[in-house]
């Protein structure tokens, strides 16, 4: 019984930590009033998704996804699963590009209205 409990916690603690990081990012998006802080919350949310994908790719007693002649490739459990790593590699760079585009929008908003606070912006627009 106790062995089973320890196995359960060892198998799931990474998921719980990524969910905590995701909740921090969601709090930043929903409750902060400055638009820059909202963008930082979006980045934290995205990094939690990246951590989740990388954590589900792991196997115990496996090595990195580069071929070593001493380790046979016929046995699949010798190497990590390379597919989530590939997907996240592109997602990180696209995230940086999206961050640049959103900051360009924010600079334009600041040049036009002189503020980045959400409530003041709504008052000035209407």
């Amino acid at each position: 019984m106790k062995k089973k409990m320890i196995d359960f916690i060892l198998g799931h603690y990474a998921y719980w930590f990524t969910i905590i990081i995701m909740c921090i990012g969601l709090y930043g998006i929903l409750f902060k009033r400055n638009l820059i802080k909202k963008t930082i919350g979006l980045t934290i949310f995205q990094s939690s998704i990246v951590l989740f994908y990388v954590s589900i790719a792991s196997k115990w007693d496996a090595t990195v996804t580069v071929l070593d002649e001493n380790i046979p490739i016929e046995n699949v459990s010798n190497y990590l699963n390379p597919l989530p790593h590939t997907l996240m590699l592109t997602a990180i760079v696209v995230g940086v590009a999206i961050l640049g585009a959103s900051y360009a929008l924010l600079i334009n908003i600041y040049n036009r209205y002189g503020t980045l606070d959400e409530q003041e912006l709504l008052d000035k627009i209407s």
Partner: protein
Amino acid sequence: MRDRIDSPIVLLGCRLLSPYIMLFGFYVVIHGHYSPGGGFQGGALLGASFLLMRVAGGDEIGRLQLKEHLAKPLAILGVAIYFGTGLLSILLGGNFLDYSFLPIPGMDTEWLRYTGILIIEVGIGLAVMATFIMIYDNMARGEEEDD
């Protein structure tokens, strides 16, 4: 960046560090077949080496390394290398981005695919580097405008 303090120590440190970051970026792009690395990571490192000089030395010293208007043609060149590789294999009778139809004589199918992956990694690295420089330059110029 209005009240920038000129510090020669910071500038000297960045001048010392920038070529090594650039060399490591080239290494990561070219050596991506045998170790963790590839176009995206190497392009980010190359862009970081240019941005370091721009952050430390301002516009005048940063422009000595890479001119501002050169960033857009480099990004277009990176996309064109990738797309040209795919188009070449269509013209020679294969599918889009099927590397085994590339016109390099004396190579097996496996080594042709190896070469094709290397070519498109270089294209990805160029595009990522130029895009990072483009984003930084435009943001710095847009911030100078509002006074």
